[in-house]
């Protein structure tokens, strides 16, 4: 029998613990006591969104999401799983890279009125989201000029990951090597184990620590050492999720494929469907484009009265490529091509990684159901 990653973890790794579902609040309280603002998934407006939480009672117990191209619905589960869904329309960039913010370093005169930077604790970060955060880390802090706001928000962020127990039909993290198992970049990683005939023992979580402070919190929460059976069960959960994945990105060199096919007729085909609404860029956890605007405060309250703000921008807007009195990318065709080739290909040259984590949000939230894996497949079929 093959031992899964947890079961075969080396002697040096901190041993995983197990925490009963009803004791989860001990974990959350231990984190809060350290001065973190807890943010996690909640049901709101027919979706699972990220918001402030105070306890496990705020989590979407018993909910799941049904997703497909242009489709997202919440459905009741027949159990009380706290993390029995995948990803909703929001991502953690909502906090690390807010949609609108005053430019400048938090807490300095350059952003008058801003308080100390927040210390966020993200509860329920999926493997694909961990990868997306790592990708944005590279963009915002890995170059010559780091972004102070992102750096400040990210510096102390406490990440509690969750290993997915199910795959939405829109998920394709396996083919992007970004999941479903959280491998690195977390303080704690939870795998939810539901009470079942195969694995009796009550609704509980296998918890791994990924950092010393994660291990401290885990100890403070009173987790017991995880029995081998629970460790194996947790490995089985992620293996089952990986096997259930329906979509995949073709296993080819996407960079070469797209570089060689910038005039492929498929771009015309997708342009006939794409509304250039930009939803994909809003929901994508790695999209980072922003625009800078002067904002003037007539009262002079913002210091010298000359302020700037930055806000999320989308390459689907005509303004995004404005040059010499007009856009460079005038047609929807060119803008869709820009988004997809950036995400999958030119991002690699710019930042050394892919820009895509296979979370599938762009597929679910596209109003006309454009599927990035299908578009790549169509171009690859000709190649």
């Amino acid at each position, binding site marked *: 029998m093959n031992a899964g990653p947890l079961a075969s973890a080396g002697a040096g790794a901190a041993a995983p613990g197990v925490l009963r579902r009803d004791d989860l609040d001990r974990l959350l309280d231990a984190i809060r006591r350290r001065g973190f603002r807890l943010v996690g998934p909640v049901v709101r407006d027919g979706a699972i969104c990220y918001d402030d939480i105070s306890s496990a009672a705020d989590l979407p117990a018993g909910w799941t999401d049904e997703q497909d191209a242009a489709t997202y619905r919440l459905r009741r589960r027949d159990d009380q799983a706290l993390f029995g869904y995948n990803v909703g329309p929001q991502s953690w960039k909502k906090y690390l890279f807010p949609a609108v913010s005053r430019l400048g370093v938090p807490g300095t005169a350059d952003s008058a009125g801003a308080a100390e930077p927040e210390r966020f604790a993200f509860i329920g970060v999926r493997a694909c989201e961990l990868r997306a955060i790592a990708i944005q880390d590279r963009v915002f802090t890995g170059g010559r000029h780091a972004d102070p706001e992102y750096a400040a928000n990210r510096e102390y962020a406490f990440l509690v990951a969750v290993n997915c127990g199910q795959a939405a039909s829109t998920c394709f993290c396996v083919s992007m090597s970004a999941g479903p198992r959280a491998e690195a970049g977390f303080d704690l990683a939870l795998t939810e184990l539901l009470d079942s005939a195969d694995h009796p023992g009550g609704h509980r979580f296998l918890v791994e620590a990924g950092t010393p402070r994660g291990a401290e919190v885990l100890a403070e929460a009173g987790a017991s050492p995880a029995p081998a059976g629970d460790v194996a069960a947790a490995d089985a959960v992620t293996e089952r999720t990986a096997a259930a994945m329906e979509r995949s990105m073709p296993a080819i060199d996407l960079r070469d494929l797209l570089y060689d096919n910038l005039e492929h007729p498929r771009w015309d085909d997708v342009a006939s469907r794409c509304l250039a609404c930009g939803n994909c860029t809003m929901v994508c956890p790695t999209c980072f484009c922003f625009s800078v605007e002067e904002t003037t405060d007539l009262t002079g309250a913002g210091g010298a009265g000359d302020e700037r703000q930055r806000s999320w921008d989308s390459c689907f807007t005509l303004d995004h*490529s404005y*040059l*010499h*009195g*007009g856009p*460079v990318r*005038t047609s929807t065709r060119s803008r869709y091509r820009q988004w997809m080739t950036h995400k999958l290909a030119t991002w690699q040259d710019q930042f050394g990684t892919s820009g895509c984590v296979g979370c599938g949000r762009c597929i679910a939230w596209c109003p006309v159901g454009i599927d990035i894996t299908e578009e790549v497949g169509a171009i690859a079929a000709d190649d």
Partner: protein
Amino acid sequence: MPQTIEQELHRQEFFAGLDQEYLALIAGCARNAAFGDGEFLFREGQPAETFYLVREGAVALEITAPGRVFTVQTVGAGELAGFSWLIGPQRWQFDGRAVGRVHAVELAGACLRAKCDADPRLGYDLMRRFADLAARRLQATRLQLLDVYGHAHAG
């Protein structure tokens, strides 16, 4: 009624007065080509291995800059697109795009050059025809450049 390539070339004003035997030689380097509306016949920067005698429709010579597409000329029925193959440089200077459905005779540059090299009389004749075409295009371009309909330039 379908015509042979040779008959088609004979119909074209561009080759008026050319010896029958030369028309036959040229036809050996020619074939019919058809393009749908918006299809590119040739792209800027690509090797200019061919030129086109337009039979039906029109070809727009386009050049692009960020955010803009310019049509510098249209080549219609009976006219010729492409002299880079003969006079050089041997790369297309513009994009050629079909306006509406285009039927054209496509002539192969290397094939024709070889025949001109083998028979300088043919080469001289073709060179004169292309020089005439180039001169007419140049005059037209100068007129276009004057922007005679526009307001006065500064200075």
